[in-house]
């Protein structure tokens, strides 16, 4: 009896060894890298970084859009608002403190957003080393498909936009002009207005998918909310971009001068 047990045990061991040897010599050598269970390694963490920084941008964009609409109230109100942004928080904190904090937060958020985006982009490229000969789209939206290159357009636009309307470096009104002057002189050029319009439409698409994606990434979407969320994302993107587009076109058509 004991002998039988021992021999069957040996057979079992032998079988297991053979299987393992066969497996390691097989076609698939297993994962190419060890799984990273660290906090920052996971693709979902990177997505969460995209979502949270995205929310920061959206909040900023709402405030920025509302501020822009003051252009309709005339040069004085607009320039005063610009001064107010610099005075914000005074006299509790010195002038420019709050604005500087906002700028630093945005800069850090942009850096984190771009880091996560490129990291995930790299991962996606690795995930499909051989392209399909034929691939059809079944469900994807234009917005979801253009997130990455749209993002590249946006960062280039943001750099241009700061050089143009914040610093005045590439603005026809020059560096020493007032904000309202830069606004009017800049957008009187149709080429500038069209460039802004293209970038803002790209922003709209980015936000359209971003709002939905962020909700999903932060784990707050479900079957019931899916439709409403997508509808909200579309309406929000249209309203926001519409609000932004009003200014350059109003200048171009002489409503603001």
């Amino acid at each position, binding site marked *: 009896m004991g002998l039988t047990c021992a021999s069957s045990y040996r057979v079992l061991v032998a079988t297991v060894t053979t299987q393992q040897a066969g497996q390691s010599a097989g*076609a698939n050598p297993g994962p190419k890298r060890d799984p990273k269970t660290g906090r920052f390694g*996971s693709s979902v963490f990177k997505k969460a970084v995209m979502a949270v920084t995205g929310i920061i941008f959206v909040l900023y964009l709402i405030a920025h859009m509302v501020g822009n609409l003051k252009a309709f109230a005339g040069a004085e109100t607009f320039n005063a608002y610009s001064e107010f942004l610099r005075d914000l928080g005074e006299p509790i904190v010195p002038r420019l403190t709050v604005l500087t904090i906002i700028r630093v937060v945005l800069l850090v958020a942009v850096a984190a957003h771009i880091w996560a985006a490129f990291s995930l982009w790299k991962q996606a490229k690795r*995930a499909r080393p051989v392209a399909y000969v034929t691939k059809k789209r079944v469900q994807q939206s234009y917005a979801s498909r253009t997130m990455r290159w749209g993002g590249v357009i946006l960062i280039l636009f943001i750099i241009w936009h700061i050089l143009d309307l914040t610093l005045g470096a590439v603005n026809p009104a020059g560096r020493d002009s007032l904000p309202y002057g830069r606004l009017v002189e800049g957008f009187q050029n149709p080429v500038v207005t069209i460039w802004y319009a293209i970038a803002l439409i790209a922003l709209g698409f980015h936000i359209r998918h971003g709002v939905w994606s962020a909700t999903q990434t932060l784990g707050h979407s479900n079957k019931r909310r899916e439709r409403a969320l997508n509808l909200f994302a579309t309406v929000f993107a249209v309203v926001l971009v519409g609000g932004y587009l009003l200014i350059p076109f109003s200048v171009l058509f002489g409503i603001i001068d």
Partner: protein
Amino acid sequence: MQLTLRVWRQPSPQVKGKMANYHLTDVSEDMSFLEMLDVLNEQLILDGEDPIAFDHDCREGICGSCGLMINGIAHGPEQTTTCQLHMRSFSDGDTIDIEPWRSGGFPVVKDLVVDRSAFDRIISAGGFISAPTGTAPDAHATPVPKVDADAAFDAATCIGCGACVAACPNGSAMLFTAAKVTHLGLLPQGQPERDSRVVKMVAQQDAEDFGGCTNIGECSAVCPKGISMETISRLNHDLLGALRANAVPAS
């Protein structure tokens, strides 16, 4: 019906593959897609050529073995498995492109056959519960709310065919991983390992050369079992919860 098939031929993982053209006549519209390939293979064997390798097993839509990219859509024009797709979904004279799943995590073995053991490794990373052996517990000892039971069952219908990976523009396996995380995470039996499960399974899916999810939704649209995008939201929720709880496994 008469068909022109353009099929990916790749003799081995190391050799570069290419599309090859085949003409097939007398295809019945009642044939399944795989039966049509069987007919083609018989013809190839009679002609002394190498038959096309493709995966299949149950042929009734429940095993998840078959999976082909047909005309650029995972499992073809109907939202079902390739074996449950019938030739009546095509027209006489059609040209049909047939490719394997293309993913860094699914290396091609031969022709249309890919190695999907990466999915097995994602499962072994955390797609299980630890249950004590011994006498079976009372059937009603652990109540499960009906809503949770239904949602868990919906997620559990995933057959691991890999269509989600194949369809995803990012080559992500998130729908598969999310279905497993949701299935176990909704049930009381899955609670003790809930945090470590999601962290380990996501880490494994990343390590297997699958991409990250960007919530495009192609996966759910081609899933033969219609697994919802909601599962991905649940996975994200669980993972962020696990990170907040500092549930980072040692290995």
